[in-house]
Structure formats: C-alpha cells, structure tokens
C-alpha cells in the first residue's frame, strides 16, 4: 500500500530497529502511524508523541520525532500538559491497555470529561506482554495467566463504552492486522479536534495466543459498510455492547464539542510558550491587592 508522497519525513525512518517479537501486532501499528504521519505531510515540529511503558511504549526508539517516553500509566496527563503549554502541537499518546485502562484509568476518565485535545492510540492486546504474560484489564473473565492461574475473576473493562459515555468526542477501533484501514483511522483520529480514543486490537503472539490474527479476522467488520451513524450515542453504545461474535472496526462515535484548551481564557492570546513573559513591573497591580497604606 506504499503510496508515494512529496513530503516524506525521512526522520521517521531514522531510528533504532524494533525489538518486538516476530509477528507482534505492534509492527502493524508502527507502520500505520508512520504512514499516516507521512500522508498528513507533517514536519517534526507539528506534533509530539508521548509513550506509556509497555511493549507499545518501546516504539519510542523506533520513530525519530519529538518524543516523550513517560511512566507506566502517565502518558495522558503528560500529553494534557504538553497540549496546554503549546496547543499548536498535535499530541499523540501511544499506550497499552494495561497502561491506559489499568494504571492510568483515572487520568483517561478525566481527560475525556474535559475533551482534552489529545489523540490516544491504545495497543490492546488483552495481556501484559513486556512483563511476560499476566492478566490485563481487558482480559476476559476466566483468563488464565501467570498472575491468575485459576482464572480472572473480574469482568473485562469495556473501553469503548466508557469513552462514549464519559465525554470522548471521537471513539474508534482498529485492528493491527488490517493496516490499510488502520492508517485511515489513525489519520482520522489525528485530524479530529478534541479527545480521540482509538482502541487498536493487537495480537500478542507470545503471551496471548487465543486472541491471534485468526480470532479477529473471523469477527471484524467495518462500520462504514454496515449502515452505522457515528453521531448517535445510542447507536454507538449498541455497537460496543454486543458480544464478540462480531467486532466493529471504524469510527464508532464522533461528535465535536469545544476542546479543553478552547475554553481556557489565557490561551485565546496564542500558545502559552510563545506568549511573551510579563515584565516583573507589570505585577505592581497584583502587589497592590496585598498592600495596606497607612492612614
């Protein structure tokens, strides 16, 4: 699918070589993100990528760009801070399901409430890969793993219904094994103004063999070919509340509303980092508030 573009960012390919297991779904996500960035024609000054910690986060070393390799679970608040400081940047989070739905779940909830203008791409492999195979928040009940040899007791999280109901203005799902469609979805997410959650089904060939490429291929379908209205919250919820006999791919929900930074008065004057710093003397009026003059 390699199309030729005028604005290829050579730096995107000037990095270390990936260290993922052969056959890992992360390769597909990696290739799709770079292709999407090239298709968008953005120079390195246009965006920053914040990575969580996990196999997904190891992508840090495989793309040369403005990158921030965060802590496990904390990419989202880092990204929110970056966006508020310089809202000209498109801020992308490359995170895992354990990372973003487990350790960082609280941050995700509140970033969505505020429609923080960040793009969260979740590598959802339903397992902890980098720590060699423990259960994840997305693992199904009964899932046997190194940390749950008797099987998982909890229900899995449903990140998509969570996002739809808690304020995300763009909710989509992609599949690492369908890169052509994934490139399109990443481009849509990156172009969306507001909080975008793109959950990417990612086979982990080493530690979660049940959810392999074949499992997904038998079940996925594209929403745009199935008469779906992404503007309807009710319809979107129905799509993500179904059992897994059919797994929807595509834009599940999309409705623009003012972003967080649009509603911060100070930012109306331009990006924070490019606003000139006040001369200390301009604070005389502030000191006056606390000053008492003798009678």
């Amino acid at each position: 699918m390699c199309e030729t573009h005028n604005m290829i960012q050579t730096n995107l390919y000037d990095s270390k070589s990936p260290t993922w297991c052969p056959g890992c779904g992360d390769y597909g996500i990696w290739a799709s993100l770079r292709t999407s960035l090239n298709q968008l024609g953005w120079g390195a000054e246009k965006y920053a990528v914040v990575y969580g910690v996990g196999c997904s986060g190891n992508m840090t070393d495989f793309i040369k760009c403005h990158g921030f390799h965060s802590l496990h679970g904390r990419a989202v608040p880092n990204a929110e801070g970056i966006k508020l400081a310089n809202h000209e940047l498109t801020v992308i989070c490359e995170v895992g399901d354990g990372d973003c739905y487990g350790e960082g779940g609280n941050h995700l909830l509140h970033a969505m409430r505020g429609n923080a203008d960040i793009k969260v791409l979740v590598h959802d492999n339903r397992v902890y890969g980098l720590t060699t195979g423990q259960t994840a928040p997305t693992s199904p009940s009964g899932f046997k793993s190194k940390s749950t040899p008797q099987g998982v007791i909890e229900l899995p999280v449903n990140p998509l219904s969570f996002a739809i109901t808690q304020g995300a203005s763009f909710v989509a799902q992609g599949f690492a094994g369908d890169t052509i469609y994934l490139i399109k979805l990443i481009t849509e997410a990156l172009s969306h103004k507001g909080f975008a959650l793109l959950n990417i089904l990612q086979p982990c060939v080493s530690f979660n063999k049940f959810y392999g490429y074949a499992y997904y291929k038998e079940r996925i379908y594209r929403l745009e070919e199935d008469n779906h209205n992404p503007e309807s919250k009710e319809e979107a919820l129905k799509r993500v509340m179904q059992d897994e006999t059919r797994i929807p791919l595509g834009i599940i929900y999309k409705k623009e509303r003012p972003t967080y930074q649009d509603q911060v008065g100070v930012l109306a004057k331009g990006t924070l980092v490019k606003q000139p710093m006040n001369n200390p003397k301009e604070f005389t009026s502030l000191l006056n508030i606390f000053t008492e003059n003798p009678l």
Partner: protein
Amino acid sequence: MINLTWKIGGEAGFGIMTTGHMFSKIAVKHGYKIFDYIEYPSLIRGGHNVYEVRVSDEEIYSQEKKVDFLFALNKETYDLHKEEVREGGIIVYNSDNFKLNTGEKERNVAIYSLPLSKIISDIGAQKVMENNVALGATIAILSMEINALYLIIESIFRKKGQEVIDKNKEAAKAGYEYVTKNPPDGFDHKLLPRKAEPQIIATGNEAAGMGAFVGGCQFFVAYPMTPSSALLHIMAMYGEKYGVVVKHAEDEISVMNMAIGASYAGARSMIGTAGGGFSLMVEGLGLAGITETPVVVMVGQRPGPATGMPTWTSQGDLQFVIHAAQDEFPRIVLTPGDINEVFWLTAEAFNLAEIYQTPVFILTDKYLLESHASVPVFELNQVKINRGKLISFEEGDIAENYLRYKVTEDGIPKRALPGMKKALFIANSYEHDEYGWSTEDPKERVRQVDRRARKLETFKKTISKQNVYGDTVADLSIVAWGSTKGPVLQAMKDIKGRSDKIKVNFLHITHAWPFPADCVGDFLMKAKRTMIIESNSYSQMGLLIREQTGFDIKNKYLKYDGRPFYPEDIQNKIMEVINL
C-alpha cells in the same frame, strides 16, 4: 516599645478568619507591624477557632503566648484562653452568648461585656455583620481610628454595592459607639496612628503566589490539600489576568505529570501540595529528574503520616523531600523562613529549575503558609528571569546534530522544545544516551548519571553562604531551618531586651539541599555550645548535619505536637543550655 496581642475566638461560622485578617489590616493602616497566627480544627463548621494578631511598632517575628486583648465570642474561648491574658489586659466577651459570674475577676484584668446580638438587632442588621460590631468595639477600646475599618469595608464590599457597604459600616459604627458610651475600666493600651511606609500583608501561600507570578510562572496545577490550597486559589483567581494557565487536576499523580508535560513543552510550571499529596507525586518526581524537566514544587508540611493533623504545623517532611523517588538524581530544596523569603525564593526557584533543568522545592509548612506578616513592599525591579540554556525556536529550527543530553563540563546541556524543526530528542524515563534513545550500555549509564550529578555540584558553588544572625562570638549557637526562623529571632530579640550579657547566634538554613556543608560545618566549628530547633521528633535536620558535616548537635529542642514554636519557650531552652 508598643507590643500588643489581640486574640479572638469562637465557633467556626462567625467569620473569625475574616475578622482577624481585617484587624491585621487595621493595625497596618495605623502604621504598625503585625504577625498573625490562626488555629482551627479540620472542620468546616463548629469547633473552636482562634485568630491572634500581634502588633508592634518594632520588627516582630512571631506570635507570643501572652495576650493583652482577648475577644471571647463564646464561653469556650473564655475558659481556654483567659489565663493567657497579661496583667493590665482586657477580656471582652459576647454577653448575649454567655454570662460571666462577677467573681471571675481575680487578677488585674479588665472584663468588658459587649451585647453583640442586641447591638446588631437594634440597628436591624444581619447576624453575619456581628464581626464588624466586634471590630468597631475593638477599635474604640484601643483608641484607634474607625475610618481605617471603613476603608477596609469599602474595599472588601466594593463589588456588592453601596447598600452593603453602608450596612456593614453601620454595624462597625454601632460597636464603636457602644464602647464610646460605655468605656472600659482599667485598660489603657492604645494603638494610635503612626507614620509608616505602606506594607504588604500576606500569608506564605500569598507570598508564594506573588513570587510565582512575578517569577514567570506560566502553568500552575494542583489538587487541593491543606495547608497549600490557598496557593491554588490565588493562582486561579489571578491566573487569567496575568497569563497563567491554572488547572485543578484529578489527582496528585496527574498534577505532577501535567506539570512535567507543560514544562517539557516549554512553560514555566509549578505545583502546590502537602506532604500527603507529594507522596503521590514521587513517581513523577523521578520522571522530572531523569528527563531533566524543570518543575517548581511547593510542599506545605503538616503533621503526618497519612492524613495526620491536617490544620496543624510540622517540619516532618525534610528527609522525605530530600530523598523521595528511587535512585539518585539532582534536586534543589529551598526552605524559606519568612514571608519575604517565601516570595524571593519562589521567584528564584523558577530560574533555578530552568538553569539546572531539575525539580526545585519550596519546602514550607502550615505555620508559615497560613500566618500573615507585614513586610515592606517587594521591589519588583530586583526580579530577574533567567531561562538557563533553553534554546530559542529560531535556533531549534536550524540546529544540526542536536543532543539534548550532551555530556558537558558543568553537567548542564542545551534544552530544546517540541515544536522545533530540527532539535529533536526523546525525553526518556528510561536511561538514555545523549540524544535520548534508551540505553542499557554500562558506559553510557555512568556518563549520564555523572553528568546529572555534576549539575548539582555546579549549583553548590553558588550557595556557599547561609544567613547568620546575632553575636559574632556567642555562648550558644542555634541552628534551625524554614519557618522556625521567626520564633528563634523573636526569642533572641527578647533575650537581648532582658540582658546584654547573654550572647547567642543563629544559623538559618534556607538551602537544605544540596546541603551547604562547608558553611554549616564552619559555623558549628566555631561554636561554644550548639542547639538545633525543629518541628519533628527525629531531628531530621540534625541527622542531616551529622551525615554531611560529622557534627552531632547534642542539644535539641524538638516539637511535634502540631503547634508552632513560641519565643518564650525558646528563651527558656536557651537559658537551660547556657546554664548547663
């Protein structure tokens, strides 16, 4: 010398805090210096609240134990605090709230009954205005000018309209006139107006807020926690006017990480919290350390661990803040001792954070953060903004072979920002090479650890001196840090007032980390006797001094009951040690 302590107490809900703060302003309007101190439980309504204001025509550094004027709004205040009233003092009580037996007057203390509720209902005003009656009466008893109170009422209620202003003034006047018609017997303290320069009246939180604005803060993020919530309120109230983005985040983990994100992108960032909130930030602190992202962190100490005693004071987090987070990285810990130092060190913290590309702490406590003091107006032309080795966007757009973590002699590399065309790098929580790529190479690791450590060595050269107060040659040399400065200086002043023969000096540590070992060691080497004074039970600064200088300070005055030091107690300790 004029020295008077006015203390008001009652149930939460009366507006004790507002009333006390207004009295501080009234005193400053009369040309006096003030120091005030509040005590309240961790409740919103009910419970016993006390506000005391110490007023003097000379420099004062702390509250004192004795009271000249006790305003008892309820019986509890009277019972708890009547013994504190000095001979020649007065107790004014709300006689509509409780009755005193005539036999209560044993000592030379005037008792004055003020029917607050009756006065307020006679003029048809609301109960919430009783505090103005109380202030009006206070002013009359102290022979002060009622106009000072009118001016303050006008400024507080300016936005609420003339009617509200007039009604409040009427209440003040009613209290004032009641006392004029029924003057107290046996009390002759007066606070007559004096000539003086304008003064700032601020708490530590307010001074930190002013320091942050003036120091170029662009992004402030916090989660409320006593005793630093007021800093969030100040930043939120004035942020829009002065160009600061202020965010109340979902938790302290997010607070630290948002600040790091904003600072990585180039905004001067600050966070405010207490020890408990800082516990949640510790993981992120290490991220700031290894990515070399500047961030200013104000930690307000209160007794812990866990929830502890939320509205009381402590210096129990020194060792925690110095050592927080796994492994080693440079940090700077500043420990201001008074309102003036809070302002200047907060403003300077933004420079230090950017120059050394590392976290900088303002470590303070409830006592300093919530007590008001009057100080000369800060000279804004003394403020300098220094962004260190931050490169401009123009430079970053054309940079070739830029290395964010380049090994340099002073340890400090050039800092680029996202949004620059050419100066790319990875801010990496993993150990990394000069570019920022992850590495586990043993040589690269050592090079980066050593370089980061050199930043602190570079900084250390700039902090060779700490302030020493008192006699050059002394019988006793005191060491203290942070807010303990005030009570120690007050005790030294009071001792001098008693006898010139007692020689005491005092080293106050405002830069706790990196530890100014040479300066502290030098001071202790010359000392005849030594004593450390701090608000924790392990003597955390004492341990640090022993670790860093080898000196073991045997005389310790440690206090960890949540209450601040009192100069009277420090005086007693000084005499004890000298007479050993």
